[in-house]
């Protein structure tokens, strides 16, 4: 970390700075601005990721009626399973919030506990989703059956892949905090992870509303 003494050069526009009149030391401000820059950069990435989801949502919305005389959402969707998936993901957003509190309160038990429960809930969500996918494929409603089902598997599967990546990232964060402690660089990664996890839950809100609830009713 050689950046502490050359902050002016790294941050010429004073992007993360408290206007020059602050009690926080130079090094503390530099660390703070680095956190803001990392979080903001990841925020931009998340928004672009959501725009990608929007494209998949658009193609799904356009293709919902293109069932090629095959099954439609009303014939296929099981809202009980979706309700359980929703409960898992919503609770996991809450527990990842508890892990975040554990970080700034410097309580490792809260962090590990929150992250562990988040992992279990996320894995349960993935298991339920995989069960749904295999049952659809077994009923001859796989992604190759119709344009509607292709769009469905692309959209929901893309979210599932994000959750899978999030679970791997979660384990990595637990291991890094365990091995290296609450270091500023590790904490920036934990911040980005929690942003990612909450954003996945926001995408799921759109998913269960648009795909499952609207689809089951039409």
């Amino acid at each position: 970390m050689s950046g502490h003494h050359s902050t002016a050069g790294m941050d010429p526009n004073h992007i993360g700075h408290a206007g020059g009149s602050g009690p926080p030391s130079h090094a503390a401000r530099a660390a703070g601005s680095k956190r803001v820059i990392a979080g903001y950069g990841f925020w931009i990435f998340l928004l672009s990721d959501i725009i990608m989801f929007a494209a998949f949502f658009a193609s799904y919305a356009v293709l919902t009626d293109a069932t090629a005389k095959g099954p439609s959402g009303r014939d296929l969707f099981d809202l009980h399973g979706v309700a359980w998936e929703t409960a898992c993901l919503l609770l996991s957003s809450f527990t990842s919030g508890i892990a975040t509190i554990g970080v700034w309160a410097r309580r490792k038990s809260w962090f590990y506990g929150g992250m562990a429960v988040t992992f279990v809930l996320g894995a349960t969500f993935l298991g339920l989703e995989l069960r749904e996918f295999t049952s659809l494929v077994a009923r001859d409603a796989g992604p190759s059956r119709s344009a509607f089902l292709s769009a469905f598997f692309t959209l929901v599967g893309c979210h599932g892949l994000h959750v899978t990546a999030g679970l791997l990232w979660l384990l990595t964060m637990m291991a890094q905090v365990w091995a290296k402690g609450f270091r500023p660089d590790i904490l920036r990664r934990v911040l980005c992870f929690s942003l990612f996890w909450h954003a996945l839950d926001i995408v799921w809100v759109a998913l269960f509303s648009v795909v499952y609830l609207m689809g089951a009713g039409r």
Partner: protein
Amino acid sequence: MSEHARQADIAPGDEPIDDREIAKGVRGYLIGLGLATLLTVVSFVVAGTGWVWAPSIPIALAVLAVAQMGVHLVFFLHITTGPDNVNNVMALAFGVLIVFLVIAGSLWIVSHLNQNMLPMDQIMQMQR
């Protein structure tokens, strides 16, 4: 302008340092969880029962979903209207604009396309 604009930015997802009390933090997440659960349950009830006039169900679901996303943004991602969050909100607003353009534009264009084209099975007939 300059006095406010000079206030430090805050990373998305972070709460202001003065607000970091454990009880307060847990309460915030609990309120978010409660509101989100309520909106989710209402969504499932609206879709699963006949309590709401059927043609209005998609609009009702969309409104509930947008409300729940707002709850997530405020209580889980700590996006606020404060001066320390201006950059986060501006980026979010741009993202929402693009999302709206992509989805609404696609639906609009393709519905016109469908209106101006023969149904698909007739096209298939003509190609034989």
